[in-house]
């Protein structure tokens, strides 16, 4: 029997066994990944739908709009893809224990990989279809948004093949991330069960990120020498996209460095636990705060956009006035999308983090750790690196955008005010998500038998 056939036979059994307690574990097993995939799909479709109007214009100023649209799309789509990958890992991680057990029972690597991929893809498909439904509900409102004095109207609607393509892309992303995310289960099932080693976050990540940003700065400085307009747009979009990916790559390494230093200085139990939580899995910790890093990056562009609009506001002619208004509209949409992404990312990852640590929380409660200390450790683990990651992201964005804007524009008060506002809003969203997670700790401790076996 082939591995795929075996996986197709076994997967429904796993689904059925969790179904018996779906009310208790439904959120943990399926709800969170579906919610995340749904949000990702809805936002991706909204961004794609909202921006297609720009490509229908052919006049002189169309190029300016198209360049700005590319920047906005890259700033939204890269974080959305990372959120999608995060949701896929979440879907796959839910099954770690059972899949490791299957490996111990003799299921081969290929069967386990196929089962993981099938489960994650099914969850992604359900979420993506729900997201498409959400997009269909919001598209009429999206059509009311005005650019160049006219509503987007029917341009907000994507064609059915485009929507199907987006759903397919989300499913492929989920399948690929799940297969990659479960490499450890496949290679060492016992290792996953006993968590022999902490996740690594090598310094090479920092080096690669620095090189990418440096290349980006050079490329942005040479932008005008690329000649063709389409090449300039491609280089600009590519630089911003790669810089965002580089930040994602570097983030876990930065968090590991910081947590190592905090571990040495830790005096109390909450400091020790917070530092060890980050060191246990810097990548998972990054997922908690990565959304704010992305938003901070976006915040610099938003600030620059506001500054440009502020400068042009005095120009006087109709076309310029419309462009200023449209830049403001685009900036607000980008910002709104970015915050929606942060809220979804923070909420999903916080809920997942508490559920993943439920048995640890029960253990701590039983040995007498006060709940407020558990909460303090959790808040510290998430909130303390936020300033650092937000600062580094904003700095990377500022360095990239500097060759385009020059120092005068970048240092206008409106830029600092906007970045400050974005920081504050991002922090608030993450703090709210942590507070929701804290409430979840109470729910976990109120029903410990769900997470630790109790033989009556």
């Amino acid at each position, binding site marked *: 029997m082939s591995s795929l056939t075996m996986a197709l036979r076994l997967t429904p059994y796993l689904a059925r066994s969790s179904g018996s307690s779906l009310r208790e574990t439904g959120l943990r097993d399926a709800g969170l990944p579906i919610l995340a995939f749904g949000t990702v799909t809805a936002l991706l479709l909204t961004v794609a739908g909202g921006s297609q109007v720009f490509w229908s214009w052919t006049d002189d100023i169309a190029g300016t709009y198209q360049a700005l649209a590319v920047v906005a799309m890259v700033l939204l789509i890269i974080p959305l893809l990372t959120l999608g990958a995060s949701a896929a890992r979440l879907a796959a991680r839910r099954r770690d224990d059972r899949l490791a057990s299957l490996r111990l029972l003799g299921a081969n690597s290929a069967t386990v990989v196929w089962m993981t991929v099938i489960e994650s893809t099914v969850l992604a498909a359900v979420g993506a279809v729900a997201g498409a439904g959400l997009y269909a509900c919001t598209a009429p409102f999206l059509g009311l948004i005005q650019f160049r004095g006219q509503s987007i109207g029917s341009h907000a609607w994507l064609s059915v093949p485009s929507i199907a393509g987006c759903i397919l892309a989300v499913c492929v992303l989920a399948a690929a991330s799940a297969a990659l995310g479960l490499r450890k289960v496949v290679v060492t099932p016992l*290792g996953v069960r*006993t*968590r*022999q*080693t*902490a996740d690594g976050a090598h310094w090479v990540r920092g080096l690669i990120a620095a090189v990418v940003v440096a290349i980006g700065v050079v490329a942005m400085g040479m932008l005008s020498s690329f000649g063709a307009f389409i090449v300039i747009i491609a280089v600009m979009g590519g630089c911003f996209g790669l810089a965002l990916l580089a930040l994602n790559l570097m983030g876990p390494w930065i968090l590991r460095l910081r947590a190592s230093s905090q571990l040495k200085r*830790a*005096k*109390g*139990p909450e400091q*020790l*636990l917070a530092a*060890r*939580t980050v*060191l*246990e899995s810097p990548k998972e910790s990054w997922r908690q705060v990565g959304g704010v890093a992305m938003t901070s990056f976006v915040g610099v562009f938003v600030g620059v956009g506001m500054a440009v609009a502020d400068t042009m506001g005095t120009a006087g002619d109709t076309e310029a006035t419309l462009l200023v208004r449209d830049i403001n509209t685009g900036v607000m949409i980008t910002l709104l999308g970015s915050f929606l992404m942060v809220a979804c990312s923070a909420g999903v990852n916080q809920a997942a983090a508490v559920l993943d640590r439920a*048995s*640890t929380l*029960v*253990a*701590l*409660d*039983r*040995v*007498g*750790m*006060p*709940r407020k*200390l558990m909460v303090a450790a959790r808040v510290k683990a998430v909130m303390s690196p936020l300033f650092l990651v937000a600062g580094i992201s904003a700095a990377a964005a500022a360095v990239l955008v500097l060759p385009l804007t020059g120092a005068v524009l970048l240092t206008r008060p409106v830029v600092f005010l906007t970045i400050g506002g974005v920081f504050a809003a991002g922090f608030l969203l993450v703090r709210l998500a942590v507070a929701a997670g804290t409430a979840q700790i109470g729910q976990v401790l109120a029903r410990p038998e769900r997470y*630790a076996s*109790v*033989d*009556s």
Partner: protein
Amino acid sequence: MNAILHAQQLTKHYPGSIALDHVDFTANAGESIAIIGPSGSGKTTLLHCLAGILRPDAGSITLNTPSAPLRLDTLADAALSRLRREEFGFVFQQGMLLPELTAVENVALALMLNGTDRATSESRAAEWLAALGLAGMEQRRLGELSGGQVQRVAIARAQVTGARVVFADEPTGALDSATSTEVLDVLLHSVAANGRTLLVVTHDPQVAARCQRVVELRDGRIVADSAGGVHVPAAPPAQTAAPIHNAADNAAAGNNFKGAFNV
């Protein structure tokens, strides 16, 4: 003997079943007590009620402390939490240790929760680990230790604070028979050497046979108590993997720990 923990008419219901049915139970200072019974007999529920993890639906639980008797069934959650970290120690089947911490940090955490500074906590934790045969393994993560070594870490954590009562729930349940004997030796010796009370929930007759007293539960009621001269099941000789020491042996072997840990 001095009663340290006393339960009266303890009753606990779960939806559709009764886990404890008017149980009277007394643990004396320095005793090692095995609580045995089939699955679902209520032994873990009894342990959790006595340890302040679960609240009984009815009945009282009194802990005699040097200052004054404490009624566990009337204490607030925060006070119970404090009691668990100051007066009690726990060894569970899966250890219930924190996988992200090293061995020494897991043990030291119990002291840090009571306000001891980190350096002192880790120093005392390292002493305990060394005494339990884990010298040189302090900085290892739990995933790098064997099952028996993990249980030794749990035993050290349970006692490093000077807990007067140690609760163990199937402490050898996940171990092979040879490792199980080693872990039980360590648990019994270290507890006896420090004059602590040990309550062990177990399915294993060999574990029960090595405790000073055996209490048997069935359907939420105590049906046998060796302290009252009631029949106690003995370990089947054919399953004996290693010499079984009696309580006197335990006490003698425990002298090794007395000097090192007079807590």
